[in-house]
């Protein structure tokens, strides 16, 4: 009887702690994440929709949008192919230096974006390894589009591979072996067995890769040279307008990027919700 009586206050205090924790966490998320996001849209429309639309329709903004799309359209497919190739080699074969290869794939994640840009300046810039030769042949990489593409590829290189490697590791190679024993050729095996098994994880990786490719700032800022209308991607356009005190314009372009981020997050959540078990690695051995 006494146990029953004393059980009640404990439950009460527990519920209190629980409520306090939830409030604390939600409050933090709202203040720390939601508020900055809201700020972007509020500031973008602070001077009205007309100014907003004008800012976006400006020649420089459109050029920045075009350039951002172009850079992503080159970098993402290249990293997609690399990701599949690397994941295939790492998860389906044994070779010496496998762990090292995995570490090198992750390397761009632990390098400052500024350094990611810097290395290409050192390679292709005026004082770089190949700078003089490129100059003599009239090829521009730094302060031009190829530099932007290279820096973006570097920054986003791990995304697809990172999604695929743990998944393919946990799936194992039995299904592919079964396809081989049943007489499938290499391409038949890849397109009929491997690809269907990794398609959602692949899409997931591409989604994250694309978001980063379009939003990258540090690395491209180093190699861009900030030539308006020619080498400024959207994030750089945001920076330039902000530094010129064109806050409405800066936030207008920023709102497009924020929209991209929101779309990415929504798709990501949708993929996780719908295909969660085909994206994340299964427990090893389980089916």
């Amino acid at each position, binding site marked *: 009887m006494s146990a029953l009586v004393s059980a009640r206050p404990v439950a009460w205090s527990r519920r209190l702690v629980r409520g306090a924790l939830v409030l604390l966490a939600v409050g933090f998320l709202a203040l720390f*994440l939601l508020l*900055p996001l809201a700020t972007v849209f509020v500031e973008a429309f602070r001077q009205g929709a007309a100014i907003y639309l004008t800012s976006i329709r400006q020649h420089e903004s459109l050029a920045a949008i075009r350039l951002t799309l172009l850079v992503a359209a080159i970098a993402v497919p290249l990293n997609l192919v690399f990701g599949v190739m690397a994941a295939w080699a790492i998860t389906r074969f044994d070779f010496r230096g496998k762990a090292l290869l995995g570490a090198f794939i992750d390397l761009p994640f632990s390098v400052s974006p500024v350094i990611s840009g810097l290395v290409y300046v050192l390679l292709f810039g005026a004082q770089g390894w190949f700078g003089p030769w490129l100059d003599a042949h009239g090829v521009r990489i730094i302060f031009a589009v190829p530099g932007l593409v290279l820096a973006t590829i570097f920054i986003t290189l791990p995304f697809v591979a990172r999604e695929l490697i743990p998944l393919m590791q946990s799936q194992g190679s039995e299904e592919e072996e079964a396809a081989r024993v049943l007489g499938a050729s290499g391409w038949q095996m890849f397109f009929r067995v491997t690809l269907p098994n990794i398609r959602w994880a692949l899409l997931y990786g591409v989604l994250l890769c694309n978001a980063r490719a379009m939003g990258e700032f540090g690395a491209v800022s180093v190699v861009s040279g900030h030539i308006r209308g020619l080498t400024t991607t959207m994030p750089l356009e945001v920076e330039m307008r902000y530094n010129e005190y064109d806050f409405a314009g800066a936030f207008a372009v920023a709102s497009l990027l924020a929209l991209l981020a929101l779309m990415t997050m929504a798709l990501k959540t949708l993929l996780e919700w719908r295909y969660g078990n085909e994206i994340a690695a299964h427990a090893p051995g389980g089916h």
Partner: protein
Amino acid sequence: MRRHVLPGFGISLGYALTYLGLIVLLPLAALAWKASGIGVAGLLHLLSSPRTLAALRLSFGGALLAAAVNAVIGLLVAWVLVRYRFPGRRLFDALVDLPFALPTAVAGIALTTLYAPNGWLGGWLATWSIKVAYAPLGVLLAMVFVGFPFVVRTLQPVLESLDRDVEDAAESLGARRWQTFVRVILPMLAPTLLTGFALALARAVGEYGSVIFIAGNIPMRSEIAPLLIVQKLEQFDYAGAAALGVVMLLFSFVLLVVVALLQRWSVRWTESGR
């Protein structure tokens, strides 16, 4: 050579190595080569400059602090999101990814506008004479922002798979709720928490985009190391920029190795720790 049953070993490995070599290794070699051009004396001179030291201190000290803050807040948020059911949970869960998804420049200007002395929060904080934007505290804030999802996202799956029986066992042995948390749950989460800490740290150390707007970039006070690299590049001091880059890289690697060792130590009771 042994025959492989599955096709494509040569081409996939060859392609991956070539790509990685051209995109990552060759440029990093250029960095090392360029940095070596500065010489030992030049490096010492660079590192003994008070401005460089202050920038490195801010970048690494700030990142460590930010990662620590993230470890605490991240644990709280992950715990609440995994353990409790409340309206809007899914939405808040999705929101955690915002710092991943939002381009850093956008985050930078948004945070600056919010925390500037004339901003929504900045104005309010100013009445308490707390200065966030254009001060070291702003750097810390931006670093916490960009590193935040790492801790939550590494902790969540582990928290979900945590064996509740162990908690019940602790309770049946007479442990109070907070004792169970401190003595049972926290030790089990420690390795994961360290991983999240390391990821947040690595991200914060190198962060540029979101920090430079809010930092104000006052030399000796709120100037971060990556910005110093950019400035050196703008002055065509390639060797100096490269040397600083190498120092940062080495610092980061040492930090990551230390964290990895800590992690190995903290998982000593699991199979992988053997």
